[in-house]
């Protein structure tokens, strides 16, 4: 792999002010807390975690769609956090996003052609109508959309088709980085496979870097090179996907993995680790391990000391008592 990473995320935190009116104070939601990782060109990093783990917020923060509270984001060596939105605009060509709800992510009043060409209008204002139409046609063809769909509206499509339109819109400006925020979780399982295969294909063909966000580990398994597990905005475990899948070290990862349904009815199949309780409020600031309240392996130390990421068995784990 090349020496300089495409994207370096360094101790990024995203906090929101939430609630608060005249009577009650404003509370601070710590959606993402000190997350660091690097993404190499052509690599796929999957970010997993349950709802509220901050994975979507992290993705949006990387694209500067939500303000970064602390930390830095270096894209090809340039810190994105210090850029203004105007300075950010030309860089957006390189980093495009695919959204969770395929139909809701398409403007309902615009035709497929207008939707797909919008990024071109922003980033290549010199192209004339015919050149834009040409690019749209090429991209639609590459994504497997029929030319006669150009003049239709988003609501006329199924979820899978709409997601293809969303992918076409992201790819028309030939980005280097594609951020996919739960791109298949709103789709039928049969369609999920199609869209995942499509993503894998384009990733190969265009040596795209992919940031793949999901809560579904069985989906992630097929696409990732590396895997990052988030819990309450904290990284719990990060490393090569295969290593983590076969030997998860963090109890939270183990719980997530054991929740994946499998066709294994043998007597020595892994025991299901069940988590009890709900996700603690994201407004709390954690002194200890954020997972301590639900961890089957928690000790006194866990609620007083926050574990840091330490290399264990070929990946990094934030846990005082790692082990499989």
């Amino acid at each position, binding site marked *: 792999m090349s020496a300089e990473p495409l994207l370096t995320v360094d101790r990024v935190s995203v906090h929101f002010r939430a609630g608060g009116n005249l009577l009650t104070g404003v509370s601070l939601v710590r959606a993402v807390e000190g997350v660091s990782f690097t993404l190499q060109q052509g690599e796929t990093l999957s970010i997993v975690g349950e709802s509220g783990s901050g994975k979507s917020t992290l993705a*949006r923060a990387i*694209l500067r*769609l939500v303000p970064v509270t602390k930390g830095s984001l270096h894209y090809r060596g340039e810190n994105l956090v210090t850029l203004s939105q105007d300075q*950010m*605009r*030309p860089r*957006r*060509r390189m980093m*495009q*996003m695919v*959204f*969770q*709800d395929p139909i*809701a*992510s*398409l*403007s*309902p*009043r*615009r*035709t497929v052609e207008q939707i797909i060409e*919008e*990024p071109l209008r*922003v*980033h290549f204002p010199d192209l004339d109508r015919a050149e834009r139409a040409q690019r749209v046609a090429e991209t639609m063809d590459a994504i497997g959309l029929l030319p006669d769909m150009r*003049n239709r*509206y988003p*609501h006329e499509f199924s979820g899978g088709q709409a997601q293809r339109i*969303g992918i076409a*819109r992201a790819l028309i*400006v030939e980005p280097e980085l594609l951020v996919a925020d739960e791109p298949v979780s709103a789709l039928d399982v049969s369609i999920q496979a199609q869209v995942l295969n499509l993503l894998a294909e384009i990733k190969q063909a265009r040596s795209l870097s992919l940031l793949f966000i999901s809560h579904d580990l069985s989906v992630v398994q097929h696409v990732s090179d590396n895997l990052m597990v988030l819990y309450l905005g904290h990284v719990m475990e990060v490393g090569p996907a295969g290593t983590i899948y076969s030997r998860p070290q963090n109890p939270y990862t183990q719980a997530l993995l054991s929740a994946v349904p499998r066709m294994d009815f043998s007597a020595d199949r892994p025991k299901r680790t069940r988590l009890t309780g709900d996700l603690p409020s994201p407004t709390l600031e954690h002194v200890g391990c954020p997972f301590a309240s639900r961890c089957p392996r928690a000790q006194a130390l866990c609620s007083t000391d926050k574990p840091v990421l330490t290399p264990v068995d070929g990946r990094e784990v934030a846990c005082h008592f790692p082990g499989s």
Partner: protein
Amino acid sequence: MSLLNRTNNEAALEAAVTTLQSRSLTQLAITRFLRNRVAVGASIVLLILVALAVFAPVFELLTGYPMEFQDRDFYSGKPPNWEAQHYLGTDYNGRDILVRTMFGMRISMMVALVAATVALVIGISYGAISGLAGGMVDTIMMRILDLLYSFPLTLIAVIALAYFGRNIMIVFVIIGLVEWQLMARVIRGQVLSLRNAEFIEAARATGVRPFGILVRHIVPNVTGVAIVYMTLIIPEVILVESFLGYLGLGVQEPDTSLGVLISEGANAIEQKPWMTYGPGIFLVVLLMALNFLGDGLRDAFDPKDR
């Protein structure tokens, strides 16, 4: 509509679409609107009514009765008499109801037009600014609206008319200034729900400027709603005007409006029902045409509801 018919319509639309050089949304909306026979019918009826109101003086010439003329032979309300050319009868003062209805429609339409325009302009800008700004600005703007909402229209009308004198323009403006509140709320709600929509985020993610987001993604998605509320506000404005007229706050004699004519007729509905028929029928037709037009426009602007 039958399935076959629907397919034909789709095919016709597709054909229309491919022949058009630039297929703007508005052109598509017009194409769709023209296919809607009820809406086209309603707009023709509306055009005729507008023409009648604009050319109301012609009726004075046709019947030979000026608007204020009090026919001594037809005092205290006489039924329609075709020989005397009182086609819809006369009122208590012997004035011709047909002529007065045409002039009344004129006033009602002017009120509707001015008040609805005021409501539309103020309502959309206020609502869109409040919704887009969000946060504290939004809260303050909405509380101001709540405050205004708590003032009763009649009270404002009485005070304003006492202060500025009885002038029909004051009535127009007051109604407009009151009616925009609903529009502002509705538009704000729309903008709020749009602001966090994924397609708006998608536009931001790709680098579309805020102005582009407003023009290309937000405005097209609120026009449908704005038009529908406009067609709801217009009938309401006409009714509010007639209510003010009933209280003696609206148009002053000898001028009249549909609402005033109807309330005069309603007082004598058992003895002299024809006094209500003429203006009543015109009011009903006017309101229905506006409603059908509104429906048609909404369908045309919102392909989702097809």
